[in-house]
């Protein structure tokens, strides 16, 4: 990216919003930016925001790709629960941690593949196709855990949720690596362009020679993989798999993060780093509400306020895009 692009990127409203939220947090809680080094790792409210924001950020990475193809994946929260349940049950059953992690990720990939097949080959709208797994997924997770909260003490799984690498908590490391790798793959190859092409107009993309079916399959599978990763982190964090509550409503947070990041819900233009910023904005708000002593219930009200604000801000743009599409359709 050229230097001018960087400067333009830093001036985006998302960064202004993040700065504003952090500033408010700092005003409410002067020690907000303090970072200390204890027991070989970083501590502080900012680190906490990053750490707590990591699961949603990881979901948002996968969700960005899905939304860029004009889809949506409502099942990620349920897939998180399934992945956590599979890992926990395997580990308590005596399997090694590596097998458990691999199995959990494989299950996530399978779930994503299932969504992808429904969307691609059965041509079901994404909201509904993924709704099936959202409804049934939590039941499946409970089937795996047999209805109880399965706790474990496996050091590797716990390390994924609470450990640290060079002083940085593992969830942050995983989220950062995933975000960087995904961004590089998408932007340094033609993949990103192809995803945008499919999102803007699937038939046109197919006529242009893009195997849009395979691409859609890939995107949903990736979202499933991200969800499973996030599920492992959440399970490692609480040292157990809670089929009822793991990842509950996180699909909505992930969609919100992507929307805040400026990815259009009508497909096309997308940005993975900005979605991660969106996830951080959400988490900074959560943390701010908690440290300012308000009850966590205010979170939902504030969140809805933010969505409304963004919708109003984006409205003329969306209207313009619609008009353009409408004109294109007429001129065909």
């Amino acid at each position, binding site marked *: 990216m050229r230097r001018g692009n960087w400067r333009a990127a830093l001036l985006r409203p998302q960064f202004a919003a993040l700065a504003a939220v952090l500033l408010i947090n700092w005003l409410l809680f002067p020690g907000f930016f303090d970072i200390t080094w204890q027991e070989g790792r970083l501590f502080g409210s900012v680190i906490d925001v990053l750490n707590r924001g990591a699961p949603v950020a990881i979901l948002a990475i996968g969700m960005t790709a899905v939304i860029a193809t004009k889809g949506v994946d409502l099942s990620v929260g349920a897939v998180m629960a399934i992945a956590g349940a599979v890992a926990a049950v395997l580990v308590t059953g005596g399997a090694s941690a590596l097998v458990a992690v691999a199995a959990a990720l494989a299950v996530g990939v399978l779930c994503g593949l299932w969504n992808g097949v429904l969307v691609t080959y059965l041509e079901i709208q994404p909201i509904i196709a993924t709704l099936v797994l959202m409804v049934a997924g*939590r039941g499946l997770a409970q089937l795996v855990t047999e*209805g109880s909260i399965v706790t474990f003490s496996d050091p590797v799984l716990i390390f994924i949720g609470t450990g640290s690498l060079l002083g940085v908590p593992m969830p942050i490391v995983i989220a950062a690596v995933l975000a960087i790798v995904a961004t590089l793959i998408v932007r340094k190859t033609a993949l990103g362009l192809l995803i945008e092409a499919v999102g803007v107009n699937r038939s046109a993309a197919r006529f242009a020679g893009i195997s849009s079916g395979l691409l859609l399959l890939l995107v949903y599978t990736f979202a499933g993989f991200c969800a499973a990763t996030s599920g492992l982190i959440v399970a490692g964090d609480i040292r157990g798999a809670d089929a009822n509550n793991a990842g509950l409503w996180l699909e909505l947070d992930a*969609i919100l993060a992507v929307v805040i990041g400026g990815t259009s819900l009508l497909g096309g233009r997308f940005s993975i780093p900005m979605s991660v910023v969106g996830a951080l904005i959400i988490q900074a708000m959560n943390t701010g509400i908690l440290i300012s002593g308000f009850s966590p*219930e205010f979170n*939902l009200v504030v969140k809805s306020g933010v969505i409304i604000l963004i919708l109003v801000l984006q409205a003329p743009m969306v209207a313009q895009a619609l008009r353009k599409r409408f004109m294109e359709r007429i001129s065909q």
Partner: protein
Amino acid sequence: MNRALRPLVATTAIFALAYLAAIIQFPAMLSTRVLGNFLTDNAFLGIAAVGMTFVIISGGIDLSVGAVIGFTTVLNAVLIMWLGLHPLFAFVISLSVAAAFGAVMGAAIHYLKVPSFIVTLAGMFLARGGASVLSPDSIGIKHELYTTISKSYILLPGGGRLTVIGMIMLAVFALGMVLAHRTRFGSYVYALGGSEVSAALMGVPVARTTILIYTLSATLAGLAGIVFSLYTSAGYSLSALGVELDAIAAVVIGGTLLTGGYGFIAGTFIGVMLQGLVQTYIVFDGSLSSWWTKIVIGGLLFLFILLQRLVFSAAAPRRKVFWKT
């Protein structure tokens, strides 16, 4: 046979077969008592699902219904228990608040040109958050009217009880059918779901219809909230969590096309009853755990989506674009 009625027939046949299978295994399930409980236990879901049917026929989706139900139960409880209002007066206020809420969402969807699921998602956060800000704890409702209503029922032959809230649901379904199939508003909703552009060109008042659709859905969700508070005699901000998904599932199972423009209120009724059947079967069986409900409903949802695909590719000789791109 009319091709358009095929999905409705398929849904009804599957319900009949499933019920038959359940009766063969548990003969006790064939009683008006069980049927009466179907109606009572699913009354709030059915009422909300009627509103959802209108929204989905118009090509949209409403994720806020569960939250509006929760909000209404809390608002009712606060008005009756804390402010000492008469329940009927509280009902009027709750319904008006819900209606206004829906109208604002409809206006946002139309004028901001945002996908309905994002607007109603914001509405869901707002309603749940608002409910927990009003009262994070469950409030019990004690009032003569509540006890009278929950005690009154019509005795059916065979010992079944048709409760007041069951009757409210049946009335809502009847009114919904009339509204969808016999009024101008109903045909506007179908036209909008077929294609918004052609509907506008035909002279359908798109703005007014969109706002009315979401107002209707939210008002019915409010009514479902009142019914829920009658059913549980309490107001709780987390009640009816995830009911929007059950309602969507009921609508889809009932044969309504998710792309809009096609569907039946009567089908939604069968969809709600089918969900009730699954729950009752699991209770009768005793050995199956409650999470099987979710898996079976997910499976049914998948089955019916698949069925819709098959029926519609068979009905149209030319390839129909199912997923609007």
